[in-house]
């Protein structure tokens, strides 16, 4: 041991094992021996000890006796707010309205007022995003990796999404669920389920906004130019301009709050955007949902690369061994045309009772109905209420009470929509 090695390794003498009088390692022993004979290193060691003393609180901040009781009470009370995951997973089709419908909600709400100052930032940022030849983004959101892209769960961990857009093609990957579109058709799959779906348009509001953030900027711009009780704050810091938008949940809440907080726009939220002051580009964003006096960060745009070198071939890559089905086809809902959502829901459950596969396949296109058979065959309807609208959901919810053949009964909110090629109703979720 020489002084140089001693100095390099001085941290070793302050590890927890030495402090607590535990067993010493070879180097620790050698170092302690060294200071017996070397005054310089001993002095250094003592100064380190003194510094450590200064930095170690003498009064330990112990929790109060009530703390552990309060903690266990909180844990006890914390039951999942959502219905079981298994139900939500059936909402593969993307249950919320399109971006276009979302605009209508905003535009219809109230007459426009003189443009707020912040609308200028959104307008310029939208133009920059529009001009980009390609975009690469990293976005994190509290959700589940296999769950549909719009699904928000403020209590879940963050799941990273990578978003790529080049020309007409785009791809969003959230770990287990991936979606790719070529400008017309989309393909979506969940690797762990070995399931794939395909269709046309963009079947998710959030994916549409991730792939086309200029639409989000335009949306914020139009929101800023209307007067909806939305609060704007702007501040400049370190070459960036931050614009914060605090807005109430968008959608229809007169009949039911069932969808409240199920997506970002259906939550009271605070959205924070950072723009480059010089280039006017959007460079980051955070979204918080607000509940009561609490708030929770649920989404962050961590990185946006404009004109990133993205290969179209990588964006368009499809997985091997997954068969893609087109759930929404001309037959979907064909036997459910010209009736109400409530009547359609009843018809589906009556078909479940006798397990009429042909009717079920039309009425529940997003799910392989065989997967439902164990649970739902022989089910009887105990009660049906009038269908209600909630939030931004494009269809209706039919409140039902049903009894399964094992005698158990359950209350359901069956999501029904008829924006299908046939115009007939299909079950979109809630079972």
């Amino acid at each position, binding site marked *: 041991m020489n002084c140089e090695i001693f100095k390099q390794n001085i941290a070793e003498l302050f590890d927890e094992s030495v402090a607590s009088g535990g067993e010493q390692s070879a180097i620790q022993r050698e170092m302690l021996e060294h200071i017996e004979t070397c005054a310089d290193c001993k002095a250094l060691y003592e100064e380190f000890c003194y510094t450590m003393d200064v930095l170690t609180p003498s009064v330990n901040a112990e929790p109060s006796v009530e*703390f552990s009781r309060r903690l266990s009470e909180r844990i006890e009370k914390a039951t999942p707010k959502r219905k079981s995951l298994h139900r939500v997973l059936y909402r593969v089709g993307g249950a919320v309205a399109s971006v276009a419908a979302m605009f209508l909600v905003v535009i219809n709400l109230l007459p426009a007022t003189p443009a707020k100052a912040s609308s200028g930032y959104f307008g310029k940022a939208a133009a920059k995003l529009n001009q980009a030849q390609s975009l690469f983004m990293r976005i994190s959101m509290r959700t589940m990796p296999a769950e549909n892209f719009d699904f928000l769960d403020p209590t879940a961990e963050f799941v990273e999404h990578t978003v790529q857009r080049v020309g007409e093609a785009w791809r969003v990957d959230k770990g287990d669920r991936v979606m790719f579109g070529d400008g017309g058709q989309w393909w979506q799959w969940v690797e762990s389920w070995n399931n794939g779906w395909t269709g046309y348009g963009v079947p998710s509001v959030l994916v549409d906004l991730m792939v086309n953030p200029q639409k989000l900027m335009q949306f914020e711009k139009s929101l800023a130019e209307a007067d909806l009780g939305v609060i704007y704050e702007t501040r400049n810091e370190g070459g960036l301009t931050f614009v914060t938008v605090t807005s109430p949940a968008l959608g229809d809440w007169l009949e039911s709050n069932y969808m409240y907080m199920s997506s970002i726009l259906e939550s009271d939220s605070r959205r924070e955007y950072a723009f480059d002051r010089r280039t006017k580009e959007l460079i980051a964003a955070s979204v918080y949902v607000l509940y009561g006096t609490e708030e929770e960060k649920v989404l962050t745009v961590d990185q946006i690369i404009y004109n990133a070198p993205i290969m179209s071939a990588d964006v368009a890559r499809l997985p091997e061994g997954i068969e893609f089905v087109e759930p929404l086809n001309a037959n979907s809902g064909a036997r459910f045309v010209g009736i109400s959502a409530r009547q359609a829901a009843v018809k589906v459950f009556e078909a479940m009772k006798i397990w009429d596969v042909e009717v079920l396949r039309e009425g529940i296109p997003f799910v392989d109905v065989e997967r439902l058979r164990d649970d739902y065959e022989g089910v009887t309807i105990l009660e049906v209420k009038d269908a209600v609208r909630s939030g931004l959901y494009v269809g209706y919810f039919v409140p039902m009470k049903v009894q399964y053949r094992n005698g158990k009964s359950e209350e359901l909110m069956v999501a029904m929509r008829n924006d299908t090629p046939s115009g007939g109703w299909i079950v979109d979720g809630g079972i």
Partner: protein
Amino acid sequence: MKPERNTIIGRWAELYGADLYRFARFRLGSVADAEDAVQDLFVRLATSSSDLGSVASPRSFLIRSLRNLCIDRLKRRTLSTTPLTEKMDIEQECEAESEIERIKVLMRHLPEEQSEVISMRTAQNLSFAEIAEILDIPTTTVKSRFAYGIDKLRKMLNDKK
């Protein structure tokens, strides 16, 4: 909630609740914030669907998660105008409060990455190996950050003497 999940979380709260409280207390300052952060952590665990059975070292896992929550809270605090200090009702709290404050003032002379390692070692009595696990960096990095930080403060304290 599955019963076994509840049991695991309850057990963790029992074993590590006090450690976690101390961690949050040092980070956030006030008693109320510290309690709140720890409760928040366990509520999230109780309601999330992550697989707890596969967590290899619960203590590090919990501290790591709590650290993230504290960072979020501190960021939020700087964005809003929440007052940083709250009135303490008992004498010992005042003492702990002022000591933590005094230490934090000293630590401000160091880069965050060094002061964090030092406070984890001193106030939270974590070993270098645990700190490495929590921060997901090599133990050698932890040790060198620690040594750099202490050495800088040592020189400062020497100058003051």
